[in-house]
């Protein structure tokens, strides 16, 4: 942590970056995102188990981008998000400094994008262990049971779209749900519209989700909507052998194809 603070201070003092995006402890002790623009503020930076948010979501926000060149405290999911954003041309690799954090909480020396790619490639890219258990349990249920499980869960959805706002991959300035000619997703919360929204979200993240679980964590009514995208992470890996966010040059799974993609249901 001391390494992180001194590194952030050094970057800000040398004007190498204008803002450091990291975590600070909030008044109740909960970690919250911090945007540090002054070298003296770097002492507030923390990194421990409380720091769970995916900070990469701020890299595409105009309010943050307008501050200038950015440095970001990045654990594995954040690094993979950065890779995805670069590959989708939402971010220039040169415009950010990555303060990489290893699994054990140590500061990594991420000099450039190749170093980051090498680090990502030797990490475990499958879904986190805590989410694999509910995924397996759900897959064991019958289709009818799964239908009623999701009906019950999604009936709580209040259409606040926190899942979308928290997701670094959901950066569209005009989302399909804001389109009203035609109105694809009903504005009010009802079971059908809630389900359509979550199907739409999962489909738009298929092959792009990097398994950070931020959508489920941000849900104010506790819908495990991250399981939908994580299920597709598994499926995309099974069918196409691709994990998202592994290279700055990868193309999106659903906008490319292999002529020999295997399926067994098209007659």
């Amino acid at each position, binding site marked *: 942590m001391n390494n992180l603070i001194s590194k952030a201070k050094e970057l800000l003092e040398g004007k190498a970056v204008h803002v450091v995006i990291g975590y600070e402890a909030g008044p109740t002790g909960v970690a919250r995102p911090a945007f540090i623009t002054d070298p003296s503020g770097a002492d507030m930076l923390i990194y421990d188990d409380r720091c769970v948010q995916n900070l990469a979501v701020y890299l595409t926000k105009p309010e943050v981008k307008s501050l200038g060149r950015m440095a970001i405290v990045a654990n594995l999911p954040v690094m993979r998000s950065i890779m995805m954003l670069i590959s989708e041309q939402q971010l220039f690799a040169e415009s950010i400094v990555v303060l990489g954090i290893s699994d054990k909480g140590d500061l990594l020396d991420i000099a450039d994008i190749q170093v980051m790619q090498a680090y990502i490639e030797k990490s475990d890219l499958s879904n986190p262990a805590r989410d694999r258990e509910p995924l397996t349990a759900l897959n064991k249920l019958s289709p009818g049971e799964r239908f*009623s499980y999701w009906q019950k869960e999604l009936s709580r959805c209040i259409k606040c779209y926190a899942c979308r706002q928290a997701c670094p991959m959901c950066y569209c300035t005009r989302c399909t749900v804001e389109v009203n000619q035609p109105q694809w997703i009903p504005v009010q*919360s009802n079971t059908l519209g809630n389900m*359509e929204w979550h199907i739409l979200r999962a489909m738009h993240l298929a092959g792009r989700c990097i398994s950070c679980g931020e959508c489920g964590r941000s849900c104010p009514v506790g819908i495990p909507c991250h399981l939908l995208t994580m299920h597709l992470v598994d499926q995309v890996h099974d*069918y*196409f052998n691709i994990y998202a966010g592994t290279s700055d040059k990868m193309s999106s799974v659903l906008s490319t*194809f292999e002529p020999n*993609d295997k399926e067994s*249901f*098209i*007659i």
Partner: protein
Amino acid sequence: MSDFEPKVVAFVCNWCTYAGADLTGTSRIKYASNVKIIRFPCTGRIDFMLLLKAFANGADGIIVSGCHPNDCHYTSGNFHAKRRWIVFKELMDFMGIDMNRITFSWVSAAEGARWAEVVNTTVARIRELGPYVSYKEMVNRPVEEEVRNE
């Protein structure tokens, strides 16, 4: 439910399956009249939301059909569609939506008889499954009732 007539919506591509369905007609082959055909420029144009809207508007079954792989008028539209349907099918399965109600097929412009067969087998299967009650219930549930149940 002997008087149940399934409503089936077919999303087809202009260049292969639509022409194939035309051939079925000009060849005077009879097939189930339950199907309502919607013509698209390409299978690559068929958004998954359109399928959901078909169910929401009362369809009991859906057919999605286009050119065989390598025969796409736009070279690669059907390959893109194939990837999308693989992912879509897995997501629908995970959410417990009955994938037996959706038929994905490749039917070329020369396969008039095959189009009749695809429609007939799909309609027969949907007839056996009955109306899509669980989806219709969800559509018709009034918002007030949901609020009361909170």
